[in-house]
């Protein structure tokens, strides 16, 4: 049952991921990517990462992807131009590369010992819960958490500088 759910979600995730590649219009790619994000979010729930699952939807699918879509609309850019691909060879190279990468990954994964998820001990305070995340962020991860503020501030400034018009 769980496995079936996993398979469904995985198929959705992979399919929409592949769709990103297949779509010429970036807008569709972006929408397709939201599908992947959603599927992943659901998978996170199966991993008891409720908080992450939530912000995956809210922040990622919501905020970030909206930004993407917004930019795409703003630029109103044509998709992958119909012109000849200057690097057509890469397409054919991509398949063996992908194959090799996956082969290597599975070689590694094969070695993973089967373990099961630990039993739920403290209910809604368990790993993955908002409480746990909050605690973690303000103890162990205090510094990274604070540093992200620097990161974001910097990103804002950077984006502003780059994107503002010349006459500003």
């Amino acid at each position: 049952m769980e496995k079936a759910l996993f398979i469904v979600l995985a198929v959705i995730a992979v399919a929409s991921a592949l769709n990103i590649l297949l779509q010429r219009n970036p807008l569709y790619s972006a929408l397709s990517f939201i599908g992947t994000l959603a599927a992943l979010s659901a998978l996170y729930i199966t991993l008891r990462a409720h908080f992450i699952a939530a912000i995956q939807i809210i922040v990622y699918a919501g905020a970030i992807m909206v930004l993407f879509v917004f930019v795409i609309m703003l630029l109103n850019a044509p998709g992958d131009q119909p012109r000849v691909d200057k690097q057509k060879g890469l397409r054919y190279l991509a398949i063996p590369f992908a194959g090799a990468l996956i082969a290597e990954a599975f070689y590694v994964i094969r070695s993973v010992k089967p373990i099961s998820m630990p039993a739920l001990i403290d209910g809604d305070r368990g790993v993955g819960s908002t409480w746990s995340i909050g605690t973690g962020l303000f103890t162990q991860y205090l510094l990274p958490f604070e540093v992200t503020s620097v990161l974001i501030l910097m990103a804002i400034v950077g984006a502003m500088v780059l994107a503002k018009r010349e006459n500003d």
Partner: protein
Amino acid sequence: MIPLSWYLGLSAVLFTIGAVGVSIKRNAISIFLCIELMLNAANLTLVAFSGFFGDLSGQLFVFIVMTVAAAEAAVGLAIIISVFRNRESLNVDDLDALKL
């Protein structure tokens, strides 16, 4: 019970798709999407480990990664915008003035 390796496998597949996408897509935004996909693949791995090990730090890491992704998105899109202003094109193959 879903084995850990399934999650890892899915993650690897997504990562691969992302990597392939980066090298075959021509639209800068699509390429960027593929990169986001790769980050998500990594996130999946982290969350999977975190969940199976019962260790929080993986998820905290994912939290940080999402912030980074957001920041990256902001800057990346800004760069793309500024390029588009100059070139009216998002095709990265047009960006070949600097080479050899």
